[in-house]
C-alpha cells in the first residue's frame, strides 16, 4: 500500500475544506483565526508533499515562509482583536456592523 502524492493532496483538500467551513460559519473572531490557521496548514501539507515527491526543495521553502507569515498574522491579528475587545467588549462578528450603509 504505497502512499502517493494523491493521498496527500486529498488530505490537503479535506483540511482546506474544513478550514473554509470554519471561515464561513464561525461568528467568533478568535475562532475565525483558528480557521485561517487550518487553511494555511492544509496548504503547507500540499507543499511539503510535492516537495518530497519531486525532490525539489522549493516547496519546503514556501511552506517555511507561509509559517512565517502565519506567525506575523497571528501577532498583528491578535493585537487588533485585543484592541477591539477592549473597545467594544465583544468579538462577535455580527456585532461588527460599522460597514453597514
Amino acid at each position, binding site marked *: 500500500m504505497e502512499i502517493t502524492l494523491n493521498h496527500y493532496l486529498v488530505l490537503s483538500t479535506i483540511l482546506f475544506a474544513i478550514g473554509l467551513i470554519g471561515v464561513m460559519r464561525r461568528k467568533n473572531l478568535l475562532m475565525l483565526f483558528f480557521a485561517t490557521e*487550518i487553511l494555511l496548514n492544509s496548504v*503547507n501539507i500540499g507543499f511539503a508533499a510535492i516537495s518530497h515527491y519531486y525532490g525539489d526543495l522549493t516547496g519546503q521553502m514556501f511552506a517555511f515562509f507561509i509559517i512565517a507569515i502565519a506567525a506575523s498574522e*497571528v501577532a498583528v491579528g491578535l493585537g487588533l482583536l485585543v484592541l477591539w475587545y477592549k473597545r467594544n467588549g465583544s468579538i462577535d462578528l455580527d456585532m461588527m456592523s460599522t460597514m453597514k450603509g
Partner: protein
Amino acid sequence: MFEAVAFYLFAFLTITMFYITVTTQQALYALTALAAGMIFISAFFFILGADFLGVVQIIVYTGAVMALYAFGMMFFDTTRDVVEKRTSPQMIFGMSTLAAILVVAIFVAPIVSDNITAFYPVVEGVGNSQQIGLVLFTKYLVPFEVAAIMLLVAMVAGIVLAGKKMDRSLTLMDCDDAETILQENKES
C-alpha cells in the same frame, strides 16, 4: 507499510482535530484541538522527510502561535457564548469543498502534466536541515531577510496594538477609578 499506517492514522487524527476546531462551541476546546492538529501535521512533515519543517511547525505553531492564542484568550470573555447562526450548512460545505478541490487542482495541474523541473533538487546524503540551510541562505536569502523584518514589524505592531494602557492595572486601582476608566473605554 509503516508509512501507510502512519499516514492514515495521522490523517484521521488531523481531520478529527480540525473538525472539532471548527465545530465546537467551546473556545478552549477549539484551541486545544487546533494545537493537537498542528502537532499531528508536523508528523506528516516528518514522514515526508522534511524534518526541519516539522520542527519549525511544532516550535512556531504549538510553541508560539498557540501560546499567543492562549494568552490572547485570557483577555476575552470566552465563557460567553457567541451565537453561531447556522445558515444552510449544505451551501457552506459544498462551497468549501469546491473551492478546496479547485485550489488543489490548480496546484496539481502542472505536476500532472509533468511540466515541472526541480530547481533545487534534493542533494543525496545530506541532512534535510543542511539542504534547507543551503537553499535558504543562497537563493532565498532576500526573502528570508524580508520575512525576518516582517516578523519584527508584526511583533512591534502586536505589542503596540494590544499593549495600550497595559501599564494601568485595573485590579490595583480603586473601584471608582476602575469604573471611570471602563466607562471611558466604553464611550470611546
